[in-house]
């Protein structure tokens, strides 16, 4: 298990410009053990950040360290203990998954027999069984993603970068992959930096979420903080929109600021009023059945809605 509190990734003022294009701007992030989600629209700088951390790209300015190694001076040491699953296709079609993963293990410095043993182990963990002996050209997208994941884990890294591992997967395969990502962080004890442009996915698997937007850090905090209570109350009554509206109007008349959301009514906090009592009494007066009464929570999506207007436009364009 990676020790708690250990810093896995740290960047200071990390910047990458391609001519006029600013891929990353003055990025300061810290990533600890467990699963960290890196969220951003396409083109937000997620893949660029991973490539810089792997030493495949040189930053324009700024510094970064991975597992205590400086990316500027210790790229080789970093790549020895880090696994990488790229977003794009990267598998030769005429080689079997088994042969390929063994070869990749050897390229990470494992001896011949250790490479074979670890490949068999890891391919089983990612769920490639008999298919492993077939050429990968005939693999489905789900199987290819598993083979890509296997080569990233085969040398038992301390950290893996998973770039869009659920890309192109159907819902069932997506759930499987997310469960696997969760297991890598929790059971295998390997720190994970996983990117996605789908916020909902990362809500499920990450301990921590870093949100990038057009190369800027929008927010970085524990997943729980993103989902913290907003202070509002979510109330739902039995019936359809008619009942909802009758209920909402009565609440408003009682002095509670509220608005509809879906089939529910969101009541904004009104500290001077006994909110729960008013809700109960209003429902009783109207003869409506109360179905749900719960604190409202943030969603990861809200981070983007709260972002600066210019940033939102970037996301829309990206």
């Amino acid at each position, binding site marked *: 298990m990676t020790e708690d509190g250990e810093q896995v990734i740290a960047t200071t003022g990390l910047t990458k410009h391609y001519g006029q294009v600013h891929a990353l701007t003055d990025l300061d992030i810290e990533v600890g053990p467990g699963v960290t989600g890196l969220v951003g629209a396409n083109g937000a700088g997620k893949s660029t950040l991973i490539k810089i951390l792997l030493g495949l790209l040189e930053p324009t300015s700024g510094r970064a360290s991975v597992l205590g190694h400086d990316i500027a001076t210790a790229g080789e040491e970093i790549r020895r203990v880090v696994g990488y699953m790229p977003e794009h296709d990267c598998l030769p079609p005429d080689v079997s998954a088994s042969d390929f993963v063994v070869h990749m293990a050897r390229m990470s*410095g494992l001896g011949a027999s*250790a490479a074979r043993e670890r490949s068999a*182990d890891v391919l089983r963990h990612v769920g490639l069984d008999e298919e492993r002996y077939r050429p990968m050209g005939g693999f489905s997208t789900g199987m290819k993603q598993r083979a890509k994941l296997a080569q990233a884990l085969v040398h038992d890294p301390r950290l893996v970068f998973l770039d869009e591992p659920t890309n192109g997967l159907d819902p069932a395969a997506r759930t499987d992959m997310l469960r696997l990502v969760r297991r890598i962080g929790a059971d295998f004890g390997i720190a994970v930096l996983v990117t996605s442009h789908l916020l909902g996915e990362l809500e499920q698997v990450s301990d921590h979420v870093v949100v990038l937007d057009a190369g800027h850090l929008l927010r970085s905090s524990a997943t729980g903080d993103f989902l913290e209570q907003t202070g509002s109350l979510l109330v739902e009554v039995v019936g359809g929109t008619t009942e909802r509206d009758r209920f909402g109007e009565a609440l408003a008349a009682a002095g509670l600021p509220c608005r509809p959301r879906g089939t529910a009514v969101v009541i904004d906090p009104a500290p001077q009023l006994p909110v729960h009592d008013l809700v109960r009494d209003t429902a009783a007066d109207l003869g409506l059945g109360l179905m749900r009464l719960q604190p409202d929570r943030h969603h990861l999506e809200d981070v983007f809605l709260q972002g600066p207007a210019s940033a939102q436009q970037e996301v829309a364009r990206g």
Partner: protein
Amino acid sequence: MAERTGVIHDLGYRRYDGPRDGTATIARTLYVTGLRHAFGLGRSGKSKILPFLLLGLCTLPAAIVVGVVTLISLDELPIGYASYTTQTQLLVSLFAAAQAPVLFSRDLRHRSIVLYLARPLPAPVFALTRWLSLTSALLVFTLLPQLVLYVGALLAGLDVSDQTTALLKAVALLLLTTTVVAGITGLISSVSLRRGFAIVGSIVALVVVPGVVTAVQAIAQAEGADDVGVAAGLASPWSLHSGLADAWDAGVTVFTPPSGGWVVAYLAVAVLVAAVTTAALVRRLMKVASR
């Protein structure tokens, strides 16, 4: 517990605490794999056919020559070592053109290069190791028939020191020529990622251009403009090889042999082409890696 756990997860994850190889050992593993792949070993059965067919065709004449020398007791080989390479240069060219894409196009086309470069081996070491695999494959391909000739000549009782000197001259020339040929075909394969284009490009560089050079040299000799022919010889790896072999008295004759300063120029161009193409290969791989 009512919850069913998957069979495949039963053993749990095992960590690896064993030894890990250093960069040199990883590079050696990559080199050996590359060399094997150049001959189709460790790949599909189909991919072994062409390299071994060409190797057979290239070695067969040497075996026949040895048979003839032994049967009718000649006092010298009817064909010299360096001259043998000149005679079989078409086969060597085809081998280089067909197998360079195996080592250089595949990783780039399927983008598995990214997986290599995300591992300890630095990009320049990777590129140089690949190039070394191709150079070695070409050396094996060209040296095998020479060794057959050499062993046959010794068994037929020809003079050991004469044969050894001639062989060593041929080997020295081959060391230079194979680095040039590997650099050219490797670079072409790393730029044109489609195997067909890479093969055609290499054939143009190794078969068509030398053909044109030989024609120019023949015309230059007939017209008495030897310098034109000598200068034309700088344009292809095979004319460099033949020209240097002629100048070095290694049993090859060309229409317009280089002499004096031209020999230095031939040598310099060969070394320069090998160095420049190899450097370009390294740059090419590093550029692809950063994308």
